[in-house]
């Protein structure tokens, strides 16, 4: 009997060690990738790199100013589209959880969350690029906005469901109209939670490349026009990474570093916001 308990205990300890080993080993690839990008990228980044547009092949120098500006414009436009729709739909879902419309809308959110990004690229190509006759920044923004929507909706919905109903009831009993109760009482109370959903969704889409391949496409020159093709950070990494030139690879490492920096900052920001709200995103 003693021996058996010994065996069982050993088994338990072995299992625990295995679990700990596997759980921590998986962080190694991430750390290697991060360190490698930082090592390769940090030497590339300087003022010139951030403010100049790409140089023609063979010429030294050149930067990613067009991609930085492009990413900013496209993500900003996507946010302008997705945040209001997402918040309002999220409010509807949290307020009317039991209606048939809410059920189907919720199903659609699940569906949207699962759609591969490349498929969204194809669809937006047929919705906008083909009718307009040209690749355009706005089509890229709409593709990214579709990807943002489910995250913003779920964050809004879950945050508002966490608020005590007495909050809303108190405001309603004072005779405040419904829309003001929602906009002036409920939403401000859940603001941190909703904001964390927004920053998380931006962190997700800022690195998305696939939907931009057929929509915003890319542009070697500085462009601010929403109806013209526009360069973005992830797309510049893709084109330079697949090019045969060492200079361009170096530019791509620099661009990867900047992109990674944005993503990390947005994620840390999200973490700080969600610390208060125990929502699952």
């Amino acid at each position: 009997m003693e021996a058996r308990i010994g065996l069982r205990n050993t088994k338990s300890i072995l299992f625990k060690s295995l679990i700990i080993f596997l759980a921590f080993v998986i962080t190694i690839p991430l750390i290697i990738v991060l360190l490698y990008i930082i090592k390769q990228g940090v030497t590339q980044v300087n003022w010139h790199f951030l403010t100049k547009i790409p140089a023609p092949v063979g010429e030294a120098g050149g930067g990613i100013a067009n991609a930085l500006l492009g990413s900013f414009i496209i993500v900003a436009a996507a946010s302008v589209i997705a945040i209001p729709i997402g918040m309002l739909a999220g409010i509807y879902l949290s307020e009317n959880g039991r209606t048939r419309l809410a059920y189907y809308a919720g199903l659609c959110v699940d569906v949207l969350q699962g759609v591969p990004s490349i498929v969204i690229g194809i669809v937006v190509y047929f919705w906008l690029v083909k009718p307009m006759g040209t690749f355009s920044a706005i089509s890229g923004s709409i593709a990214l906005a579709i990807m943002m929507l489910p995250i913003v909706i779920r964050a809004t919905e879950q945050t508002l469901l966490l608020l005590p109903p007495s909050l809303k009831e108190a405001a309603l009993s004072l005779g405040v109209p419904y829309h003001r109760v929602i906009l002036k009482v409920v939403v401000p109370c859940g603001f941190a939670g909703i904001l964390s959903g927004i920053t998380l969704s931006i962190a997700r889409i800022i690195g998305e490349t696939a939907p931009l391949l057929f929509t915003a496409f890319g542009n070697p020159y500085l462009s601010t026009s929403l109806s013209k093709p526009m360069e973005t950070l992830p797309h510049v990494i893709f084109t330079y990474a697949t090019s045969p030139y060492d200079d361009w690879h170096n530019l791509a490492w620099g661009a990867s570093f900047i992109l990674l920096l944005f993503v990390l900052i947005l994620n840390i920001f999200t973490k700080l916001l969600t610390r208060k709200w125990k929502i699952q995103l």
Partner: protein
Amino acid sequence: MEKKDDINSFAKKAKVTLQMKNKRLDLSHSQMKWETIFRRILIVMSVILLILVGGILITLIMQSMPSIKSLGLGFLWGKVWDPVNNIYGAYPFLIGTLLTSFTALIISIPFSYAVSIYLGEYNSKGWLSELLKNTIELIAAVPSIIYGFWGLFVLVPIIRSFEAKIGVAPYGVGIFTSSLVLAVMIIPYAASLGTSLIRMVPSPLKEGAYALGATRFEVIRSVVLPYTRSGLFAGILLSLGRALGETMAVTLLIGNTSQLANSFKNIFFGPGNTMASVIANEFTEADHTVYLSALIELGLVLFLVTVIINVIGKRIISGYTNN
């Protein structure tokens, strides 16, 4: 005279009060109007979601009609993809997608289970647990293009020398390489869900098992894992959904050939193509209707498969959280 003034001023006052009253009435009217408008806006925004998803499905079906009509169902198991000679078969991409996704999934399962069990059961509080949790979440945050770029320049040479050693053609890029990178990328989806589910296992169940003299391993094996089985399965489904639709990292690493090699070993270690990667590579080059439409049909298949997988996964999870 004075009296008249009095009456006049009184009338004026009355008029003013009446106006104010009307205004207040108007205000509440406009408030009411706004309330209805606001409710309608909320409904419209939710309807937009239905239109969006319906629109995506209809667009994909409409645009893949030419290929469905001219190629029929045989499209899915046609073995040759040769756009130059107008021959379209999706079989190489189906094989490529299934092989990369399932290899990645099999590699990732032990790790995501380990993370879930560690964070859910062994060490669910404290700084070390928080640190590991945030690190795992960070894996999902890094854009896939960065994994692809890193893999192309760091992992591919390593794989190439490995392949030379085991005696297969040393391409470096290929299905095997893509699976490795994919495996890392999809771990967080199953792991974070698994963690929260394992934390939800009621402690009386575990305490009961401990009281019967079970060791920690036995509690995990015969209480925790059976209790969370379908939830952990849902997490794996979500990971699979990610793996199937993942585009950029795979496109950079898979080598992009549409020809199937002759033996399984050569397929597995050699270059290939997935449904997503062939769309990414050839969509803007597709110069005639059936070619483009065949690519969209691939997108349609991808859409349907990932949507079904995701919705099933989500339903299982919501069943959990409701109980």
